[in-house]
């Protein structure tokens, strides 16, 4: 709870102040109004003393008592002002959410118009009408606050009003008062409360200023501002006479803001922001842009991870990651089989031994990738398939050295094109990565700079890493685009990314990566955002890079169909580990891991028997925080035994099957005994044969 509400010691102190102020609002006048109103002609304009710590005023009344008593009026007026402003503002601000398009724009324009009028001007105008005095000041300042509140409400309500769940409630037949009360207001309450607290402290300041000038609270009433004006002319003689009320104003303002913060946080934590907050609290900086899609996946997002954002840099110029080996807790003592040795000849495009990725979290470090060993041979097409949260994207990013703190990456070996990555530092590593590796992300727009024409983006890597001059680099880029079957390549170079279609952009990114003739392209869900026809173009482009340049491809996808048809070798990931490795040709018929088999059976294809229910896998994939020390699939597996629930099965070579590895205590016999979890699916396969 404390962590959720960000309760730092300073904030707790301010909350204590706020509580004290509220107590004074209630108890101040009854306790001290006697002392505050007691006229003492013997001690007029007395200095600070033990009897009168703040001194006395021109009638000998105790100023400390008057400051304490004034708390009620000062705070209640400030609250009334903010309440008036927000009542008006919220009411008007919610109107656009309820009205049709035409009236909506009328209201919106009116709000904009009022926002444009300086608040002071509006306040003066209203004050002239209502008259001077406490009531006038409150109404004037309240009305002046309203446009801002209306604008804020309008913006917030528009975003929540456009949310799917509001549309869903409308479709179900929920009427508008309930829509407002149950769906819109609660979901915009947190920022409104925050803003309300700020408005209250601003109103306190403004009201005090008016009273100070004699335009606000009129004698015999008094608030802190009025007391300040009494004390100010004795500033040098009795500093506390002026400092006392001044201090009260400042302290109250800060305390009210702190109270607003905490209240808003309490409201917000009720909702999905909770996860985000936690992550932030855990230091999973949302600013680490590459971390964003990953953190999404970690938070058990069913949706395909959002695309990596702009920091995903021009693919070829892979930023050097400072992923220093961190304090990854030693994994349980299982000894995974090393990745099969690369055949003699050119060195493997990528070799990673015992890769683990961990990151700090509220409940200690979580390790979403565990002991992954993989090799991508020279010119090989390897696929990693897995569901969200399986660790596949993190594995790819770590392999491309793109993970930055807070992710801690630990490997026993990490070689790119046969060269150990961590033997080099700084520039050397950047050059190695830049020349040997290109990365293609799900969203091509994230890899392209929207402000630059393609020419610049497609040539700079070649100029940097291959020492070409601009003319040669342009020639090479045109050549690349042509190879990838982009129409009119010369013209494309003069265009900006937004002028291209999604498929063209993705091919441009691939072309960009290929201009340096890298040994490896890591493609993370490169076709997920694309349509079927375009998906084919992009896969064909990758295939061409593979065929013609011998560029190895590491393709990451949740789509087992894409992986099976594109790759030569498939790695199946679940719960942060590789659970099975096998040739793509064996995937459909000869997989032995229960998860692989169940996954294949669960996805309908064009052969699926329509008269039977689909085989399903009970439960859901574990999140990174839920990963057990034993087999992660055991909880959903029909074959799971005590051993599965106690011990992590190591990834070992499958007997008599070269190039195949599996991590399972009870692998299904190859192409035999159907897995119960996938029973219907296997029968189906039998029928087909």
């Amino acid at each position: 709870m404390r962590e959720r509400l960000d309760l730092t010691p300073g904030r707790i102190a301010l909350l204590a102040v706020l509580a004290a102020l509220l107590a004074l609002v209630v108890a101040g006048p009854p306790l001290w109004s006697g002392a505050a109103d007691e006229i003492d002609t013997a001690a007029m304009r007395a200095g600070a003393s033990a009897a009168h710590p703040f001194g006395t005023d021109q009638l000998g009344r105790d100023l400390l008592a008057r400051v304490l008593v004034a708390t009620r009026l000062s705070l209640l007026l400030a609250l009334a002002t903010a309440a008036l402003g927000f009542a008006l503002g919220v009411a008007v601000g919610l109107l656009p959410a309820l009205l049709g398009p035409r009236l909506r724009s009328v209201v919106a324009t009116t709000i904009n118009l009022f926002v444009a009028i300086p608040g002071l001007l509006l306040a003066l105008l209203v004050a002239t009408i209502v008259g001077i005095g406490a009531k006038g000041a409150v109404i004037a300042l309240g009305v002046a606050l309203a446009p801002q509140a209306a604008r804020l409400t309008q913006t917030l309500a528009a975003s929540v009003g456009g949310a799917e769940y509001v549309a869903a409630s409308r479709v179900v037949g929920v009427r508008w008062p309930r829509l407002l009360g149950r769906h819109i207001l609660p979901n915009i309450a947190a920022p409104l409360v925050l803003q309300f607290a700020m408005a209250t402290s601003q109103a306190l300041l403004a009201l005090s200023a008016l009273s100070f000038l004699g335009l606000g609270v009129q004698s015999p009433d008094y608030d802190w501002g009025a007391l300040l004006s009494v004390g100010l002319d004795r500033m040098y003689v009795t500093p506390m006479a002026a400092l006392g009320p001044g201090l009260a104003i400042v302290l109250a303002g800060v305390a009210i803001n702190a109270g607003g913060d905490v209240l808003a946080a309490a409201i917000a934590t009720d909702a999905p922001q909770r996860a985000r907050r936690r992550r932030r609290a855990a230091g999973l900086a949302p600013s680490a842009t590459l971390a964003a899609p990953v953190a999404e996946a970690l938070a058990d997002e069913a949706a395909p991870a959002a695309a990596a954002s702009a920091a995903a840099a021009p693919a070829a110029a892979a930023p050097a990651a400072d992923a220093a080996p961190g304090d990854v807790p030693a994994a349980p003592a299982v000894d995974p089989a090393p990745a099969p040795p690369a055949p003699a000849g050119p060195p493997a495009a990528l070799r990673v031994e015992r890769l683990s990725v961990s990151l700090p979290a509220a409940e200690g470090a979580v390790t979403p990738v565990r002991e992954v060993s993989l090799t991508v041979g020279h010119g090989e097409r390897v696929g990693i398939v897995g569901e969200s949260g399986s660790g596949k994207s993190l594995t790819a990013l770590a392999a491309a050295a793109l993970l930055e703190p807070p992710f801690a990456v630990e490997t026993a070996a990490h070689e790119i094109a046969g060269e150990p990555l961590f033997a080099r530092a700084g520039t050397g590593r950047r050059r190695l990565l830049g020349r040997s590796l290109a990365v293609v992300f799900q969203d091509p727009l994230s890899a392209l700079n929207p402000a630059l024409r393609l020419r610049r983006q497609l040539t700079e890597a070649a100029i940097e890493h291959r020492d070409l001059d601009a003319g040669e680099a342009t020639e090479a880029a045109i050549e690349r685009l042509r190879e990838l079957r982009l129409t009119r390549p010369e013209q494309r170079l003069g265009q900006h990314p937004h002028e291209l279609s999604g498929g063209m952009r993705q091919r441009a990114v691939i072309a960009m990566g290929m201009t340096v003739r890298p040994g490896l392209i890591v493609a993370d869900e490169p076709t997920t955002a694309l349509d079927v026809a375009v998906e084919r173009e992009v896969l064909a482009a990758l295939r061409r890079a593979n065929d013609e340049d011998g560029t190895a491809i590491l393709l990451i996808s949740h789509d087992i169909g894409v992986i099976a048809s594109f790759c030569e070798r498939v790695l199946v990931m679940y719960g942060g580990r590789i659970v099975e490795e096998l040739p793509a040709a064996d995937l459909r018929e000869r997989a032995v891991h229960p998860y692989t088999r169940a996954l294949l059976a669960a996805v309908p294809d064009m052969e699926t028997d329509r008269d039977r229910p689909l085989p399903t896998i009970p439960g859901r994939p574990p999140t990174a925080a839920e990963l057990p020390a034993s087999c992660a699939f055991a909880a959903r597996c029909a074959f799971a035994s005590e051993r599965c629930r106690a011990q992590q099965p190591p990834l070992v070579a499958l007997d008599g099957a070269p190039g195949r590895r599996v991590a399972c205590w009870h692998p299904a016999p190859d192409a035999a005994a159907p897995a119960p979890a996938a029973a219907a699916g296997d029968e189906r396969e039998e029928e087909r044969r």
Partner: protein
Amino acid sequence: MSGLAVRGLRVQVGSGRNAHVAVDGVDLDVPAGTVVGLVGESGSGKSTLARATVGLVAPVAGRIEYDGEDFAGARGRRLRRLRRRVQLVFQDPRASLDPRMTVGETLAEAATAHRRLGRAARAAEVRRLLEQVQLDPAHAASRPASLSGGQRQRVSLARALAVRPDLIVADEPTAALDVSVQGAVLNLLRDLREQSGLSLLVISHDMAIVRYVSDRVAVMRGGRIVEEGEAAALMASPRNDYTRLLLDAAAGG
């Protein structure tokens, strides 16, 4: 004709310079008791069509007939009457469930939108709905954030069922789900149809999914229906090149 009949539907989205015609003269029938699959890529207008069938977007031309009554451009009371019969299940259950409301509150809200129910009746109805979508009734107290994607999608299906509609339009009901849990949702759609005689319009970009659940299939591209027919026949002998492309892609995958 009983059931949904869309005729010459034209829907424009956006306004001013950004306006474009997302649905461009669509005819589509969902006869009572049948499951129609609508397949097409993103941007083909299929989601806009789905939204138009429940009056979330107003068409610029055409008719949306339900049991012979035209509801195109309906507002107020007439729109509510349409929505008692036709419900929409949104693609992303994470976005379409209010994060602040418990599952029970969400379902109760839908169940009481058109009917008055006492406290006990409401609780019983929530329970019945959860059981209908094969969720533990104890989930009534859960919030969406604590459910898995598949469970959430079942809740939004239950919400649509709460209105007791004749037709449910499911817009990419499994696209936001993990592969290992989408099968359960597809099975549920089939079961519902068998148990309650519900009609379904299932929208997907995935030919294999549409094939699995549908009696009839319509293929949409660029805002138009390019081919429509009985599912098995259409799969066996597609007449349109685009249909063939989709089938090839599905078979290759």
